[in-house]
């Protein structure tokens, strides 16, 4: 039997890799993929908890997370497309119009 | 003499893990072997059927009635030079046809060919097939993109959009089946159909069946929805840059996909390996025929349907295709789903 902590640790590591990816990549697409990575990490921990605590709530939450992730990806990519159409870049350091 | 005695002589117990593994491996081998053989002769069958429908005779030269033609084709493709375009993304280019074959072959794992012959019996069988068919879309998009050619790229984009769109309609048409059977397990779906005297969901769910048939054609990129490989516009679509064995793998994937889709149609709508109980009542002798025969007959009827449609229908325009999928099939499937749920709720 694999202990619960292993799953949580795995989930944490993937999550942090997602965080780092989000923080250091210039390309917005990779940043979005990093977000998906983080969401998957969270889903993993939720399913693990759900399994070990014998409660389906975690998995219900996973379904909602997947729903929101799909919506987030659709909107995010739509924003990206219109951004690319206007400025022809997908790099964050090129998009600093909101600079104070 | 049963399996236990045979294998017992080799020191294997029927309950042991290794024995179970062996059984599964044997089953997989059998299924793959038969499928490969089928694909080879399916091309022959197709050429013959279309030939006769167009008042030709089809391949006649190699072997009696051209029976060895598929072998000759195979040998030719196998020895042909494998060309990779210089600007292509090599790895992706090489993997793409493998994905195509892998996705369709692994779908076969959950198809119940006969009540005692199936590789895996899982509770989310239908979802598994959806998952694999969505994986299939990747082979198209990967090959289209990796070739670094505009024809194949356009073909890849088209086909992916088409497959993703029609998957929704197909899923909705099958949801009504799941609703009626109360299960996503394909074996249970077949068994559930036996409770009716007509023994198949085709009759109450004919709307879903029609939607499924159309979506099935689009999913496998067959005429009249073979736009990704529309010769007149895109040369050969996403696999225009492929040759030799990799080209053959795409063909393999397509023909296995046809088997998978036909099997799914048979399982979900035609009662799988069973015959209608009413028929058995009047002709009890039919019970002697093993179920696998019925299954194969039904599957081949559907494969014949594929060829028949290819021989008779012209190709669709792309925007019409998307309009058909989103504006007609999905609403019809949804309406059918609502009606089914209401009727199911009432009874």
């Amino acid at each position, binding site marked *: 039997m694999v202990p619960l902590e292993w799953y949580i640790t795995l989930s944490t590591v993937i999550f942090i890799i997602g965080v780092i990816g989000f*923080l250091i990549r210039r390309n917005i697409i990779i940043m979005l993929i990093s977000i998906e990575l983080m969401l998957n990490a969270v889903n993993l921990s939720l399913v693990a908890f759900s399994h070990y605590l014998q409660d389906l709530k975690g998995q219900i939450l996973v379904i909602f997370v997947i729903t929101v992730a799909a919506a987030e990806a659709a909107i995010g990519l739509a924003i990206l497309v219109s951004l690319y159409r206007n400025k022809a870049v997908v790099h964050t350091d090129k998009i600093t119009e909101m600079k104070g | 003499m049963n399996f236990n005695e045979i294998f017992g002589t080799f020191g294997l117990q029927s309950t042991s893990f290794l024995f179970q593994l062996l059984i599964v491996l044997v089953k997989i081998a059998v299924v793959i072997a038969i499928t490969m053989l089928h694909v080879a002769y399916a091309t022959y069958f197709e050429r013959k059927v279309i030939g006769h429908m167009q008042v030709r005779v089809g391949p006649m030269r190699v072997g009696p009635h051209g029976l060895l033609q598929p072998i000759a084709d195979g040998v030719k493709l196998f020895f042909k030079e494998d060309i990779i375009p210089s600007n292509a993304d090599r790895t992706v280019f090489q993997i793409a046809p493998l994905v195509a074959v892998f996705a369709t072959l692994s779908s076969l794992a959950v198809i119940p060919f006969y009540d005692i012959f199936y590789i895996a019996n899982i509770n989310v069988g239908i979802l598994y097939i959806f998952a694999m068919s969505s994986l299939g879309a990747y082979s198209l998009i990967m090959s289209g993109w990796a070739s670094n050619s505009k024809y194949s790229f356009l073909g890849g984009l088209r086909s992916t959009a088409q497959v993703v769109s029609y998957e929704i309609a197909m899923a909705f048409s099958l949801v009504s089946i799941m609703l009626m059977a109360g299960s996503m397990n394909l074996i249970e779906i077949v068994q559930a159909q036996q409770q009716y005297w007509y023994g198949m969901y085709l009759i109450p769910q004919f709307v879903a069946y029609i939607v499924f048939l159309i979506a099935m054609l689009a999913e496998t990129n067959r005429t009249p929805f073979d736009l990704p490989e529309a010769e007149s516009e895109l040369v050969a679509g996403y696999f225009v840059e492929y040759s030799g064995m990799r080209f053959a793998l795409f063909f393999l994937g397509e023909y296995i996909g046809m088997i998978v889709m036909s099997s799914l149609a048979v399982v979900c709508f035609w009662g799988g390996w069973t015959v209608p109980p009413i028929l058995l009542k009047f002709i009890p002798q039919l019970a002697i025929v093993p179920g696998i025969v019925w299954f194969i007959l039904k599957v081949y009827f559907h494969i014949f349907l594929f060829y028949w449609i290819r021989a008779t229908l012209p190709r669709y325009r792309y925007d019409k295709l998307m309009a058909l999928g989103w504006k007609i099939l999905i609403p019809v499937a949804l309406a059918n789903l609502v009606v089914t749920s209401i009727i199911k709720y009432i009874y």
Partner: protein
Amino acid sequence: MTMEKYVLIPLLPLIGFCINIWFGRFYQEKAHWISILAVLGSFILSVITFIEVLQGKVINYDLYSWVISGNFKVSIGFLIDQLTAIMLIVVTSVSLLVHIYSVGYMHGDSGYYRFFSYLNLFTFSMLMLVTGNNLMQLYFGWEAVGLCSYFLIGYYFRKQSAADAGKKAFIVNRFGDFGFGIGVFMVFIYLETLHYTDIFANIHTLQGQTINILGFEIGLVTLIALLLFCGAIGKSAQLPLHVWLADAMEGPTPVSALIHAATMVTAGVFLVARFNPLFSMSETAMMVVALTGAITSLFAATIALVQNDIKRIIAYSTVSQLGYMFLACGVGAYGAGIFHLFTHAYFKALLFLGAGSVMHAMAGQLDIQKMGGLRKYMPITFWTFMIASVSIAGIPGLAGFFSKDEILWLAYNAGTVGRIVWVIGTIVAGLTAFYSFRIVFLTFFGKFKGTHEEEHHLHESPSSMTVPLMILAVGAISAGWVGIPPLLGGTNMIGHFLEPVLGHPHVHGTHAEEWMVIAISVVVALGGIFTAAVMYLWAPGIPQLLGRTFRSIYTVLWNKYYVDELYDYTIVRPTKWIGSRILVGVTDGKIIEGIVNGVPKLIAEFGERFRKLQTGFLQHYAMGMAFGLFVILSLVLIFVKQ
């Protein structure tokens, strides 16, 4: 048809209002149908209800929980007892007649549908006021009728004086309602309920309690009663808040008849009568009510003597008659007060509508000195107006006589205060007869004093106006017959009818005394009429002579005792001064603007500094978030023990 019937009584006019205000402009000239049908429905239901109440059925029913907040519970509910039944009849019948009258009077007006929808809204509000079974609903109706009154006084809102009069009515009423509101709060604070039945059941617990205000120990009952009476003073235009009613005559005449004579202004009397158990517990409060009523009635009657504006005279007459009703309530004769309210509604509405008919013929002319001899041009108006005047003057046999006589007789019986107010009431009776007939003589007798064009224009009003006049005339004659005292062979039906709610004061006077009271009032009334006839028919020079001789008195009366001017100097101008100098100049100009301008300046200053933090670079923000997570995690790890 159990509760629906009672709900429908106020609801029908509300529905009419909604339909007319929303859709009225699509069928401008037909708007009256909906309004009249709605009020007719209410009237019929009211009559049915009245008959039920007559058979002894009293309804007290909570329809719907309106507000529930802590122990504060108020519902929309109906209390339909004898008092409410009488009020229902008064309100719906007068309202119905005024609606019909308005069809002719308002014909061709650009805001025709608006007028009718307001009338409907008013009827709804008034019915809510009288049918409510709790103070909150009364208060709701109270304010709603005030609002409608404002709408209708300022109906000709393009006319400056009308708009001003509307505002004046609203603001003056605020003073009264301020006290009323506090009274309601105090009732809730001390009794923890606003429902009449609960209030009256627990009211004895307040007996003897006192409250310290500015060093004076004041009886709680007296205080609450006087606070509630404050509201009544405002709404019923008693001294010193009477100033709005005369100005309210800027509104259309049907409005004056309905709101400022027959119904809304009597809400104060209704309030006092409804709370008679409370008022009866405090002698001080009773005395205040009685004296306020008596003084107001004398005060208003004297002003009415010299005015020339036909509607204003009737308005002051209304103030005077309302004073009469309060006088009655103050001496404990609530039944007599409500009886007078009942009869007054008909003859005063008749007077107003008659005046409206005259105005209609005179193309808006209001000055009675410029009229005369209208008798032969508009006979129906003349006869009905005559009946109303005879009725208000208190000539035996007509409505006004019985109710006025009842009040005077019960006042005569009510101790020292009663005797004082009886004397005042008798004088007022004479004055009333005088000024009523002054109008009649100046308007309908003698020669026409206007221009030729005006004379040519004179005509009888259309039937939609004269028919209500005639119906009201019947009321003005016969409304009093329900209260004929035993002495004159009657049974005082209305008094006995109202007795379960309002009680009946003990009468210890002899028959001889009662005959005397009647005789005095009749003689005084006839004297008033005779004097009016002498001064305005037979010797027209006398008024001028009197005016010159008693110039100072005449001027004071002509200027209505300078009350408006007094208010202008003591309240209006100081308020304006404070507003313009202190509030606008100092508070708004310096303090508020200083804050308003200073805060953004400060923010701009900070913003200039902090904007450097905004690099516009997405990852910098993301790193900020990650750092925040890091800080929170470290805090959690440090401070949260397992």
